């Protein structure tokens, strides 16, 4: 995770953010100049690409491709989260279950998931359901593994304490194991979010029938180069927005962690 230090001075924070945007501006300028210099159709300038991105967002592509993609990503991510957190807690909490499953989980998580797309197309056909299933087959592993790690490394004293106060079974999981493992669960969820987006794109390129990945691949094949670049920029912005929203959500939920929230330090 990118380090957030406790209570940085306000001035230096602004300076840091300013430098950060300056870095981005330099990158854009280099892109612009390079595009102008090369003057080739396959490498449009930064501004041309931005305009193309604007056209993508304001055209019918928004409803035919972008929104379906968002729905598929959201569905795949949420289902992965439910499966991954539940299974991860069970695997992490019971050593026996962990031993029995670890080899299989290890194999499944190292399998490069895009290889599953052709078989998913055979089973589900060319549609959104295929995309969602492929997303789940990839995004569930980082969540499951992080949850299991977070669960198995909970301080034994914490479990003892919970048992002393009569927390058993589902209550123990919901009230103690889940919050205690939540920092690691969130780290897994954040990885899974970017995995979901990536797998969504490649599944749609291969057989989504619609969606932003389908749009980008289609634009390339029909030599709509602006469309390809525009689609990538839109996707990049979506990824950035998701990631930022996710971090805000995480900071709120994990506010009890020392130093993650300024308000607590001010007391």
């Amino acid at each position, binding site marked *: 995770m990118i380090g957030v230090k406790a209570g940085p001075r306000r001035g230096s924070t602004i300076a840091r953010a300013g430098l950060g945007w300056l870095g981005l501006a330099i990158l854009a300028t280099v892109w612009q100049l390079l595009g102008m210099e090369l003057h080739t159709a396959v490498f449009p300038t930064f501004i041309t690409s931005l305009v193309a991105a604007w056209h993508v967002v304001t055209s019918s592509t928004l409803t035919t491709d972008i929104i379906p993609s968002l729905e598929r990503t959201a569905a795949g991510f949420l289902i992965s989260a439910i499966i991954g957190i539940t299974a991860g807690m069970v695997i992490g909490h019971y050593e026996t279950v962990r031993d029995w499953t670890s080899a299989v989980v290890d194999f499944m998580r190292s399998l490069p998931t895009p290889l599953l797309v052709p078989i998913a197309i055979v089973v589900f056909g060319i549609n959104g359901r295929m995309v969602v299933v492929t997303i789940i087959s990839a995004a569930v592993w980082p969540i499951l593994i992080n949850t299991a790690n977070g669960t198995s490394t909970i301080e034994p*004293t*914490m479990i003892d*304490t919970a*048992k*002393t106060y*009569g927390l058993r079974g589902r209550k123990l999981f919901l009230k103690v194991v889940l919050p205690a493992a939540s920092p690691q669960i969130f780290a897994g969820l954040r990885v899974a979010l970017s995995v979901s987006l990536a797998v969504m794109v490649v599944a749609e390129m291969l057989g989504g029938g619609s969606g932003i990945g389908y749009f980008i691949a289609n634009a390339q094949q029909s030599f709509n180069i602006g469309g390809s670049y525009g689609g990538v920029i839109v996707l990049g912005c979506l990824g950035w927005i998701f990631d930022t929203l996710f971090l805000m959500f995480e900071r709120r939920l994990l506010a*009890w962690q*020392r130093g993650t929230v300024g308000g607590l330090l001010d007391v």
Partner: protein
Amino acid sequence: MSDSVLSIRNLQVSIQSRDGSMNEITRDVSLELKEHEFVSIVGPSGSGKTTLLRAASGLRPPSGGEVIFDQKPINDVPKGLAIVFQEYNKSLFPWLTIGKNVAMGAAEYSNQERAERVEKALIQVGLSGFATRYPWELSGGMQQRAALARAMVSNPRLLMMDEPFASVDALTRNHLEDVVQRLWDSSTFAALMVTHDVGEAVYLSDRVLVLSARPSTVLAEIKIDLARPRSQIETRRTGRFGELVAEVLERVEEAGRASVGIEDTIQK
């Protein structure tokens, strides 16, 4: 004996070690804890004090013998038994405020009564006004007081403490000892404390049991006939206090000498 809160009879605990062999930690420990009695268990390093406490409270099943709490054999942590652990930073839930942490001990009461009990328990340990703080905002001693409040909030019949003051500095430790003593004086619960600090055991207890090295048995029982209420300065100044400490220390040293061989294998 009808007036005993807890009886531990011929308790034996073995733990499976890394290579799969069984490791006998506790061989044969028996003890009777009467109503409102304060008993401490001291022993050399590695005598399995924590293991003994976990088995006595029902947190782990014993390999032999039995534990009777309130006339009933236990196989789980029973109602009316509260535990304070050494590591306050691991036993307080960091995602709950102090108030909510303490409220965990009073889950069976109605909302209103729970709030009242939490408030009272926090006042008892001198933490009123800290209910909305998170554990990390409190010092170590304050956190351990919050853990004590959580244990007291349900009016337990028996309070078990595992090295409760081992993780704080010496002055804070004295203060915490007096907090515990005051709670015990003003209430009716019995207390069973495990510690390696002989002075602390003598200062707080009615009886001190000395454990032998692993596999442990009860080596000696020393009655502490110091007047109550006790005070850090007056009680510790008396000659009787010094004599008792020396007596317990002598027994612990005896046990420790016998355990040198075991210490070596642990450090290897």
